[in-house]
């Protein structure tokens, strides 16, 4: 990944760069979408209500309430004035109500009006919200949130599924990103259509009502639904893109940090990358804006096409990124000795790595780096089958001599477990961190208790709370929780067996 920095054409960009670029683009797109959405909202509000700002739901509520109150007050006043006038005119003839009664009546009327107004306002607001977010029914904010969350979850699941399928495809050797893109486009289009149909069906009644209230000119419910459905689709696409972009950006950032740390990439190259990415993102954003404009003008379902394309593009990029990630894993190991970042612990790390490679073979280590966030501690990542022999060497070799295990624990990283050991050599006065990745499906790794007695209880704790089994451990039983406890609480997917606890 270090050689390819100079590539000019898009195809020649390194996988790492593509990943970064894709992430940046997706992010920019998401941002642009958000901006547009905001602008749309503002415009809508301007036409509907006297210049309201895009406030939060909470603020809007408050404002609406305040306005309603003010209006009610005004109305009451007006009514009173009217009443007074009426009274003045009527009193000689009828004198039907006492002043007191009239006041009461006026108040009641004002109240009713205020209520009505509030209702109307609420309806308006709901309609607005509906137009803005993929909310189908006039639910409470809480319900809507829940629903949105559920939808997002379902979508994420679907996305994950698709992603997985793509990844498999990518791994199977599909190198032409164009074909993947086409496929994705088709898939997304089909998906979008099916969804639109379903949504339209399900939401017809409620949406029609809301739409009618909001858009006075629109009488037919069918087109309104279509717009709604397309709105839904849009929101969906935006949300998806955003989520994907965020995930990718994160991955890219992490990858970048790692790459910089590992390969000592120059900052200039990174800056170039950024500039490129920004430019690309801008172009894409412009395209998106255009698409949106055309859709807004026509209210056409053609926008689905645009969205589908965007989704497909994002997906293709994700696939590329996944590929890049896979490739990066191997590239990393090669680039690792080329570390240039100055750290007082760097020579130590080099020494450890050299010794381990010399004694145990070139490929026993998965990774080795200086952890800048942890006081520059040299960190070794062992493969799960070489974990024990590396630990043994670290303890017994005279130049290493890590006779003290300061800390041992595990972490659930969702894709895998990781065992973390902080070792210290009192003889040489230096630390090292030894980590091992453990398969989540078969969480087993060698115990270090035969080497350090001090690993005995911590490994039991790790077993108890995370469910990693340490082979060759003298007493692999629960230590904190009762023996009949179900599950391992520190796992990220832990569900309490007994809800009462």
């Amino acid at each position, binding site marked *: 990944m270090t050689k390819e920095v100079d590539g000019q054409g898009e195809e020649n960009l390194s996988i790492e760069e593509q990943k970064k670029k894709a992430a940046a683009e997706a992010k920019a797109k998401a941002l642009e979408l958000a901006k547009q959405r905001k602008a749309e909202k503002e415009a809508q509000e301007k036409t509907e209500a006297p210049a309201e700002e895009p406030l939060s739901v909470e603020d809007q509520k408050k404002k609406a309430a305040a306005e309603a109150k003010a209006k009610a007050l005004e109305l009451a006043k007006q009514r009173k004035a009217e009443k007074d006038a009426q009274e003045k005119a009527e009193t000689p003839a009828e004198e039907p109500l006492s002043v007191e009664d009239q006041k009461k009546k006026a108040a009641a009327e004002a109240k009713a009006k205020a209520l009505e107004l509030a209702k109307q306002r609420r309806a308006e607001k709901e309609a607005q919200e509906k137009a803005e977010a993929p909310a189908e029914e006039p639910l409470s904010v809480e319900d809507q949130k829940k629903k949105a969350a559920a939808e997002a979850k379902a979508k994420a699941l679907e996305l994950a599924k698709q992603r997985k399928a793509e990844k498999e495809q990518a791994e199977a050797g599909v190198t032409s990103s164009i074909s993947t893109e086409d496929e994705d486009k088709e898939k997304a289009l089909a998906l979008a259509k099916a969804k639109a149909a379903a949504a339209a069906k399900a939401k017809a009644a409620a949406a029609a009502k809301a739409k009618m209230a909001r858009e006075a000119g629109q009488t037919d419910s069918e087109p309104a639904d279509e717009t709604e459905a397309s709105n839904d689709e849009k929101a969906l696409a935006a949300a998806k893109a955003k989520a994907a972009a965020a995930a990718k950006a994160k991955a890219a950032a992490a990858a970048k940090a790692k790459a910089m740390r590992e390969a000592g990439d120059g900052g200039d190259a990174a800056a170039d990358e950024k500039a490129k990415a920004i430019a690309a993102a801008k172009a894409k954003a412009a395209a998106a804006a255009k698409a949106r404009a055309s859709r807004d003008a026509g209210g056409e379902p053609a926008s689905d096409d645009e969205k589908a394309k965007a989704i497909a593009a994002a997906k293709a990029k994700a696939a590329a990124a996944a590929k890049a990630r896979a490739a990066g894993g191997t590239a990393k190991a090669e680039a690792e000795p080329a570390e240039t970042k100055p750290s007082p612990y760097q020579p130590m790390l080099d020494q450890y790595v050299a010794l381990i490679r010399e004694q145990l073979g070139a490929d026993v280590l998965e990774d080795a780096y200086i952890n800048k966030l942890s*006081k520059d501690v040299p960190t070794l990542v062992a493969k799960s089958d070489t974990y024990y022999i590396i630990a043994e060497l670290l303890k017994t070799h005279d130049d290493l001599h890590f006779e003290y295990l*300061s800390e041992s624990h595990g972490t659930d*990283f969702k894709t895998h477990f990781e065992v973390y050991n*902080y070792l210290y050599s009192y003889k040489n006065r230096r630390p090292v961190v030894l980590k091992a990745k453990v398969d989540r499906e078969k969480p087993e790794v060698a115990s270090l208790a035969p080497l350090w007695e*001090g690993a005995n209880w911590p490994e039991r704790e790790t077993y108890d709370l995370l469910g990693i089994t340490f082979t060759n451990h003298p007493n692999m039983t629960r230590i904190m929780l*009762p023996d009949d406890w179900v599950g391992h609480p520190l796992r990220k997917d832990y569900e309490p067996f007994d809800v009462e606890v």
Partner: protein
Amino acid sequence: MIRTEEMLLNVGPQHPSTHGVFRIVLKIDGETIIEAKPVIGYLHRGTEKLAEDLQYTQIIPYTDRMDYLAAMTNNYVICHAVETMMNLEIPERAEYLRVIVMELGRVASHLVWFGTYLLDIGAMSPFLYAFREREAIINMLNEISGARLTFNYMRVGGVKWDAPDGWIEKVRGFVPYMREQLAGYHDLVTGNEIFLNRVKGIGTYSAEEALNYSLSGANLRCTGVNWDLRKDEPYSIYNRFTFDVPVFSSGDAWARYQCRMAEIEESLKILEQAVEQIPSEGTVMAKVPKIIKPPAGEGFVRIESPRGEIGCYIASEGKKEPYRLKFRRPSFYNLQILPKLLVGENISNLITILGGIDIVLGEVDG
């Protein structure tokens, strides 16, 4: 010869000598222990699991409840971990206040150990003296933090608030007072023949064993290993003070006693220098973001608590809650050697050995 049978004896989890909910199942032959199985977890509150849903500042009060006899060092270790990851600069005055409260906490913690340990092995009055002095410290810590034990005083970037007027002077006045009392303790206990007979040569282990069992603090220094993180991996501003690391080499309960008593003196030295050096004014809080988000990655720091090496591991995703938080709790590691020490001992030495390790069950069980 009287023939004896093996017998199981259960001690705890409710037993005054265990200083908390610690249970140990002994297999005894007459009065000799053949096997000992500690059973822990009665005070496990899942701090690490809870922390995954909390913001960093919200986690600090939970650390108060781990080692509740020296909560200031617990406060500090998580703040220090986050600050290390975020590369924060801490204001001078805050650093001094932190050191002062941590060292006061260390003295208080050792006083509790001294008093209860002697109570365990049959000396009644030292407990009362020790708790009198400890009360003075707790009153000071109460004044600065608003709580007697669960201080919640430190924050990422500094401390919650500055010391009240005259507080530094109180600490200054406390140092000579404590020295005087300490001399009294030595007169009362240290040369006492009964006491010496109870602790000398009891629970002995070598430096190699101590390292192999991951012991730390006085449990390690009693075997001749000169190791104190305040000296050897200086954090905060500990490199500005002159103090010694008391090291004894006999590796028995007696060495551990001497070690802790000498550490009180060293802490008083640090306190004395800190109240001289502390800047008279200045901010006590660094400029930190309102929502603390350490960068994505892993951080691990370790510092010297009264009981040994306390560490804090944070796996961050760059969010306001930690992805994974883990405390290296010294009492938990130190207790591991207990079954080994008990084998072959007379049952009356159980208390001497267990007490000598100086555990806090809140910390053992996390």
